């Protein structure tokens, strides 16, 4: 380890060069971090300088050049992750030069993330969609309600939606089961939610406690207290908690849980087509249906691309892609999958789309309380 003084002195001659190299490396490092930090800033207007009101008055053909300048649009959605690349490919094929950056977020995460970004003054989402997500954000003043989506489809009778929002799909909730695993356990597949309250299903089915979808959808038509009573019975039967509907479907297919009480109809139909021995599903009657709404985030970084994408998503062309992936559309000019959507066979019970955030929060608390979800004072 020891070196002679001569070696040390020899080394000293190069010290200036070494020092310069070290300083340069330090500067490079510092500039790297500074460059990283600049990633958080976001523009509040279109890159062309157009104001939001000007953009709102443009046709899609007029929006496209500006959207191309922006280059991308970021979409927070609860739509199944597997569908997103296909939707992105279809949109980008229609509008080359505008990249769709779709981010799957489950539960209420889209709402909490957008709110956090707004508080940070660094909004990154352009478009948000999901059941109740855009409505909650709208009530928090975080949705651009001045935008009137073009060719927005009419909602089913009795439903209404705040200004600036439109429906991008209907979400049916179905019971999914693993035929092979259910048979191996000596059971027969359930046909209703009531079936799952039976002791023979104790601990053998899952439910997603992060969204009160069954309560929201069935409550208005079947009676809130009646449905809450059913949920309490389900909660007393020790369900496995799964924090997303998509994960619940995969768990059933993999056999880690025999039955999922709340999964998406469109996921179930696709999984059942892939392998009917590991996925089967039941549309209950009445059928719980959520209305997924889509909206543009206020002060988003790519307002032209956001408008272009939202218009495309709810258009006939966009909805045909959405339906081809197993989803259900509110539009009457596209054909839904009859295995998932047949109002004559399974009466749809719709959630109240425009209920207040306070009511939504209260229902979620009651839902989670009925299921015995949560560990502390949250």
């Amino acid at each position, binding site marked *: 380890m020891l070196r002679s003084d001569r070696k040390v002195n020899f080394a000293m001659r190069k010290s200036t060069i070494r020092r310069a190299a070290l300083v340069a490396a330090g500067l490079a490092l510092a500039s790297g971090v500074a460059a990283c930090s600049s990633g958080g800033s976001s523009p509040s207007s279109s890159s062309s300088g157009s104001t939001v009101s000007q953009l709102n008055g443009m046709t899609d053909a007029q929006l496209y050049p500006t959207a191309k300048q922006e280059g991308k649009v970021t979409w927070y959605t609860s739509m199944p992750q597997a569908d997103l690349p296909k939707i992105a490919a279809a949109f980008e094929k229609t509008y080359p030069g505008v990249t769709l950056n779709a981010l799957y977020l489950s539960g209420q995460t889209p709402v909490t993330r957008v709110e956090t970004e707004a508080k*940070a003054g660094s909004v990154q989402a352009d478009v948000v969609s999901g059941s109740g997500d855009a409505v909650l954000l709208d009530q928090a003043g975080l949705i651009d309600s001045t935008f009137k989506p073009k060719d927005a489809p009419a909602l089913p009778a009795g439903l209404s939606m705040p200004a600036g929002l439109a429906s991008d799909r209907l979400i049916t909730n179905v019971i999914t089961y693993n035929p092979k695993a259910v048979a191996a356990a000596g059971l027969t597949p359930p046909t209703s939610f009531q079936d799952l309250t039976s002791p023979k299903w104790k601990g053998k089915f899952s439910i997603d406690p992060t969204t009160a979808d069954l309560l929201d959808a069935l409550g208005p038509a079947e009676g809130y207290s009646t449905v809450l009573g059913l949920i309490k019975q389900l909660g007393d039967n020790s369900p496995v908690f799964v924090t997303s509907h998509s994960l619940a479907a995969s768990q059933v297919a993999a056999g880690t849980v025999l039955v999922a009480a709340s999964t998406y109809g469109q996921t179930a139909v696709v999984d059942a087509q892939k392998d009917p021995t590991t996925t089967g599903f039941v549309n209950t009657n009445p059928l719980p249906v959520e209305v997924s709404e889509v909206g543009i985030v206020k002060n988003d970084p790519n307002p032209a691309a956001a408008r272009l994408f939202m218009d495309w998503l709810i258009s006939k062309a966009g909805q045909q892609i959405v339906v081809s992936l197993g989803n259900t559309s509110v539009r009457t000019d596209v054909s839904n999958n009859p295995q998932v959507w047949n109002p004559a066979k399974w009466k749809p019970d719709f959630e109240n789309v425009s209920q207040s955030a306070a009511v939504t929060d209260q229902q979620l608390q009651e839902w989670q309380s009925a299921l015995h979800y949560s560990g502390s*004072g949250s």
Partner: protein
Amino acid sequence: MANAQGTSPVPLTTPPSALFARVRQWFSEQNIIFLITTLVIAYLVLVPVGTLVIASFRSNFLGFGPSSWTLNNYSATLGASSFPSLIGNSLEYAGLVTLFATVIGMALAWLYVRTNTPAKWFALLASLVPLIIPGLINAAAWVLMLAPNGPVNNAANAVGLPRIQVYSLTGMVLVQTLQTIPLAFLMGLAMMGSMDRSLEEAAAVSGATPRRTLRSIVFPLMRPGVLGAALLVFVLTISSFEVPQLIGVPAHEWVLTTEIYNATSQYPVKYGTVAVLGMVVLVIALLGLYLSRRLGGMTVRETVTGKGFRPTIIDLGRWRWASFGAVAIFGLISLVLPVCALVWASLLPVYQNPSGAALHKLTLSNYTAIFDTSSTMNAAENTIVIAVLTGLITTLICVVAAYLLVKTRVRARRVLEMLATAPIALPSVILGVSLLYWYLAAPLPVHLYGSIAILVIAFVTGALPFGLRFIEPAFSQISTELEEAAANSGATRFQVFTRIYLPLLRPALTAAFLYCFIIAFKELTSALFLYSPKSEVLSVSMYSSWIAGSYTSVCAMGTLMVIVLAIAVLLVRKLGSSRTSRTIQIPHVAR
């Protein structure tokens, strides 16, 4: 100055020149470097803690409305009827894992160091490899294997053993124990490898039976080290997230970390509850760290810098095959099964149990999809940039800090050491939440939220203690004579540092860089709070894919990640096999 009589004056005050000299001395190059280093580390460590404390006392932290000081967050959270069960669950989970991991880890270390067990290298391999498997991947592999009709339960059923319900406290304890056994094992190696056999020989010469020697000599010598290891396992487990989230939540087994995550995931976010629960985790972790340092810290350090001992090898006779069986079973459970499950699932389009029919469905499509998905490739790029920056910055800070701690006599250097090692008690979930709060609430000129810089800050903070543990002992081994000789030759402090110390420290610095790189590469918990679409990292991509139900994609990403990290670990061990070999193992013991 002399008076009229020529006698020496009695100064009533310090002369200006002396005061100036003292001030100048205080602002010496060394003190300025110390001050800057301490301020940087204090910023990294104290800001998250301070933010958490403030948030816990604010009525509407980060809210859009008015906010005031209050104790309501504490009374509401700690007074909730379910709070005692939350604490009880957390302590039961952490306590059971600590017990099993410490007993098994220490027993394996004893077999490895002190016995002639055949093929005991397998125990070392089976302990080291799980260290590079991300917690999420390990938990995912066990969820698939322990499905009601999964391969492990089917095998157990075939031989008449009861099935294991993965979604249960048992499942949580099993998986987390397997993840923390390597920690106890490596701490046991460090401790037992340096125990002085002369004490045992003296006892034997004095006529003590082996049992009495064990009771009177070996156990008392080991007690501090074992307790220190146990407390570190406890701290690690009480702040763990992946196993409680993937296995505990489905089973209704709530612990503090999952409750914190739950409170941040729901709208409206309950910032007060999050902060109070964070304070509870922090207090428990700090207490554990304090006890760990009191009971085991010194023992660990002595094993690093003390003289080496060749431990007595005990001939187990025919029992050596029984001990071989124990090591083989450990290796099978800890290493072979999870890795096989991971690779198997990664090769399937849709997950199914291993079978002859499933062999026909094997495909590389999950791997090709990774390279075809721009968001995943973007996450991979972010991960590499963040991990490299974390490694570089942590190493840079730690080398300066270690120099100040080892080679200078700055009075307050213990404060620096305390600050730099404190993040061991700062769980990732706390780091993530508090940094998110800080960079949302603080009136800073630059928005860091959503950038990769905020992730680098979080990871550097978490990696500081490990970087320091690599570099500090290596610095201790370099004689001060070299610095003195260089100084006598006219070298400046900077020249001494860059021309003498850095070349000699190169192996330790490289090892520190790579270890911090690994930590950053697989970190999930803090990243979950701090990422944005622009700054998403691979661990978050894997978690998102898991939540989306894409098991096989998760396993493909996990397999690639393990391969990358394995290469990094091989580099670490190769570099560590030279003069810093004894310092390599110590950072393993802490996370």
